């Protein structure tokens, strides 16, 4: 996939690191600059939303890496923004007012990783039931930590995350 030089000078002061991996452009920003970086990208033409997600780098520190993928449809290029969060009470500002479709992806990231998005209009679980315990996509949450509903030991699943 051909990708041209992507970042504009306006993003430059916010950039901590940048590079190209397997053909994809990326930049790293501080979590405090995240909203400014995303707003800058959007005004630079990256109007189309890709996705927001998180990567758990357990046991490395900083543990969580937030990924924001956006696309410039006119110039046919993509940009990935990374920011790193600590293991303890990970929290980032929401971008759901800048990129509205991020609303659900941030809820999903909250649901599955336990990342708190400050300022999100409705930060509730989206895929799992509201009373779920734990965040399954964290690396310390075991596969098979859930038993089937209505089975004999169905009541014990809530202790599964601690077993790990």
């Amino acid at each position, binding site marked *: 996939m051909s990708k041209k030089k992507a970042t504009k000078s306006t993003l430059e002061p916010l950039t901590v690191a940048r590079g190209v991996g397997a053909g994809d452009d990326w930049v790293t920003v501080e979590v405090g600059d995240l909203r400014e970086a995303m707003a800058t990208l959007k005004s630079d033409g990256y109007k189309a939303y890709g996705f927001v997600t998180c990567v758990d780098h357990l046991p490395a520190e900083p543990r969580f890496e937030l990924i924001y993928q956006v696309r410039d449809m006119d110039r046919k290029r993509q940009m990935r923004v990374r920011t790193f969060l600590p293991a303890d009470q990970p929290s980032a500002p929401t971008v759901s007012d800048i990129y509205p479709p991020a609303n659900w992806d941030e809820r999903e990231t909250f649901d599955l990783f336990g990342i708190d998005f400050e300022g999100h209009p409705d930060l509730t679980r989206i895929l799992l039931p509201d009373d779920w*315990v734990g965040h*399954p*996509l964290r690396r310390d949450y075991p596969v098979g930590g859930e038993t089937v509903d209505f089975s004999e030991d169905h009541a014990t699943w809530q202790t599964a995350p601690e077993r790990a």
Partner: protein
Amino acid sequence: MEALATPKGIIITRSPGDAAGQQWLTVNFGPQHPSTHGVLRLIVDLDGEIIRAAKPVIGYLHTGIEKQMEALRYQQGVVVTDRHDYLSPPINNLAYALAVERLMGVEATPRAQALRVIMCELTRISSHLVYLGTSSLELGALTAFFYCMRERDTILTMNEEISGFRMHTSYIRPGGLMADSTPRWLDMLDQFVTTMPAHIDQYEELLTQNPIWRSRTIGVGILSAADAVEYGGSGPMVRGSGLAWDLRKDEPYSGYEKYDFEVVTEQACDCYARYKVRVREMRESVKILRQALDTLPDGPINVDDRKMLPPPREELDTSMEAVIHHFKLFTEGYSPPAGDVYQAVESARGENGCYIVSDGTHKPRRVKFRSASFNNLQLVERMSVGSMIADLIAIIGTADTVLGDVDR
């Protein structure tokens, strides 16, 4: 978080009502409703029959696919990718395979690329057929469903011929394909490509001028092009609003740049426009299929990389190296270098992407599926507010979401 301590289920607050103090009626729609294409639940605020708010509640089909991918080796993961968007398995396979190939730094052979394109276009047709059949069925046009399922069955039979499996083919794999095409399959494909245009004419005869179908879809579910992009739409959702955006053209992959086809757009921004986009897209897919079949190159279907794909069976009898490679591949697998990659492909529903993070081991650290259904479903509220409750069925149908793809 603290929100977890709340009681089970979704808490529905009282709807605010209008300025005169008239309360709106909150209605639960789904999850067990035949027109929701699975298990979608909507909480709808109604003012008489007019929709004032429609909040989708999802997660009923969440199967933890992304978690499962982390426990599987790169070769094994492809089987899981079939199962989130269960109407277009080869396209999901392709997104995953291309992402892994980019991490590994290999490129599929020309024959594999052409066969991948053929499988993806067949899938696009079969997925659009399901859309066409079910959404017309929901709006009272029963007949089209039977015609659509007839051709879809032909495609599933072709899947069975080439991969042994009707729906979840796992045919496209990192490094190449599961098997080469058979002469019988090529005959079936030729027959299909020859007869399909007449079949599409049949669907159009049933629907395009059908007064009930037209009155249920024209002017319903209006979505402007700017809104479609701003709120995360892709695929027929943006093309039905006049924006010629198609990843097959704009970010070509798997050799799509070699085929001559048109990016179909319609200007009307309503459900009828999106219906026409999908029907015309089927015709374009048939065009691509014909070209791909006529120019299908000879050659191997798998990359010649023993670190990624097993050696040929006959070498195992004579070569120690081959036995070692075979053993390593089926016990440990292969390990792409550390890094991450995002590969988007155009599925029948829009941008289906696969984001993989490798930490240098034989299992991915993280696999994220960017699903078109998940993002298109967010548009349902935008399209439905202000329209009548009966139109909600048309709007859900036109978004063409697959709930397995939404919930993953």
